[in-house]
């Protein structure tokens, strides 16, 4: 599939934004967050910022952005619609929590509950996003449980790294509370991703040129002439080709940037650095991880083979 920037940004940013909110709300729930308006504002601004710009970028690449509101109507059947609806709904508890916390500087009682509700809905929203892709049978590389898991886990992972960086930036010790969950999710993330890759490389074929054309009974099917001598919409949108060797290279980059380096760095920062060093260390970690995720998401699209390519020379998907 064609790896479109807008979609790569959309999935990573919203994932991180919701993840970040999840951890903030969780800390708040356990009364671990300082009721400091500046901190609250910065943290939530980053979370909201990521989510909103993410949603915007996905909207702006539409053929008719002005009609985007119509996308709410089909929540009964369409995961994209559900994602839209959830995103909006999730803003309610998120906003209440934010208002209370930032303006009233309160994070007590009912607000904590609302925060928690927001956190759960945030995860559900991330899940709906994952389902947009996981629900597409024509792309076996997406149509599996690992797609959903990796979206969820990576959202929580990127979220907690961000949370750590921000908390640390304000010099709060609470960063320690996030250290181990973060580590855990980084490891989980790596595992899930590895399992995803193993799955798509080993899972049995869904469709073949033979089943696509129904000509299998005559033997092996190969394309002798394409309908058009130049590329058409289908080839541009779904015909993206990436060499196996290239893909493996990128997997390594992802493993290193998104997981291994951050894993090491957070311990280094927390234990052997202090003050600004730690702050910048963690911010750097967060950035490196994000860059790693860009590679991860790019590959997620680039190496996904679409069934239609079976009509254009692909042998199997």
């Amino acid at each position, binding site marked *: 599939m064609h790896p479109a920037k807008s979609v790569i940004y959309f999935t990573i940013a919203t994932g991180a934004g919701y993840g970040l909110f999840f951890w903030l709300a969780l800390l708040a729930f356990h009364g671990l967050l300082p009721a400091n308006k500046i901190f609250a504002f910065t943290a939530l601004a980053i979370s909201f910022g990521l989510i909103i710009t993410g949603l915007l970028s996905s909207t702006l690449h539409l053929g008719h952005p002005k009609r985007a509101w119509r996308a709410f109507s*089909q929540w009964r059947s369409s995961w994209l619609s559900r994602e839209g609806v959830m995103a909006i709904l999730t803003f309610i508890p998120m906003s209440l929590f934010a208002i209370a916390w930032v303006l009233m500087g309160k994070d007590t009682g009912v607000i904590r509950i609302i925060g928690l509700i927001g956190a759960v809905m945030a995860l559900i929203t991330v899940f709906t996003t994952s389902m947009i892709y996981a629900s597409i049978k024509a*792309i076996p590389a997406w149509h599996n449980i690992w797609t959903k898991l990796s979206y969820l886990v990576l959202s929580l992972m990127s979220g907690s790294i961000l949370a750590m960086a921000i908390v640390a930036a304000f010099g709060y010790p609470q960063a320690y509370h996030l250290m181990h969950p973060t580590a855990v999710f980084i490891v989980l993330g790596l595992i899930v991703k590895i399992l995803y890759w193993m799955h798509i490389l080993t899972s049995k074929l869904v*469709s073949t040129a033979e089943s696509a054309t*129904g000509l299998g009974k005559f033997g092996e099917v190969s*394309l002798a*002439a394409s309908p058009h001598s*130049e590329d058409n919409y*289908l080839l541009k949108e779904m015909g993206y080709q990436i060499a196996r060797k290239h893909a493996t290279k990128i997997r390594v980059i992802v493993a290193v940037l998104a997981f291994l380096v951050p894993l090491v760095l957070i311990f280094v920062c927390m234990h052997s650095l202090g003050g600004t060093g730690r702050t910048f260390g963690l911010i750097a970690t967060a950035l490196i991880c994000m860059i790693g995720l860009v590679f991860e998401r790019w590959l997620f699209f680039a190496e996904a083979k679409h069934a239609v390519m079976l*009509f254009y020379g692909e042998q199997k998907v």
Partner: protein
Amino acid sequence: MTSLPKTAPKKKLGLVIDLDICVGCHACATICKEWNTGAKSAPLTDINPHGAGQDGVWFNRIHTFETQSNEGLSRTVHFPRSCLHCDDAPCVTVCPTGASYKREEDGIVLVNEDICIGCKLCSWACPYGAREYDETEGVMKKCTLCVDKIYNENLPQMSRAPACVSTCPTGARSFGDLKDPSSDVSKLVAAREGYALMPEQGTNPVNRYLLPRPKKDRTAVDQSPRQLTHEDTSTDGAALLARWVDKILS
């Protein structure tokens, strides 16, 4: 209704394509373009019409495949491909706006371009590449089964058929109600064991394809090919000539 019709469509209008006689002439592809560029989905925009990267919206495309059997027998098969108007159309269920819908009365899958937001998701969901995004219009388009032709009372009966069907020079394309077992198309499909593309995708296409029939080629079956018995086996046929000299042959 972008959830699929709750009650199964009353009719299942669709196409039947006979690969036994399709010569890959592309007539059904260009006439489709010609009809539809001024019809419901008008225009079927073309980009770079006179330069590099020429591309455009086509509802019907002709591929050519070759097959190679283990015995080394190979053949060439021309293969037209358009929307199959699936019963369980994923292009419909993924659509967030309801622009992509399947009609209850005849099962035709259409796009309501007035509300389509151009998210392209349906084109990802279709395993058959039957959806066509119009860059300039920012909406999705697709085979309409010539809905504004087949019901059109302003056209004479012979024209009241999908453009691709009525123009096919070899007669490789048929059209009708594939739900009604007593319809002629259903009989054609039954007799020729018409099949669906990529059944494993669970889309339950309405359109059917008819396989090329067995070649009337004895070499494949019969290892000792027939041959004529010679009346004369000499190198110059002199004996036969001699025989003909006085023979009344007329």
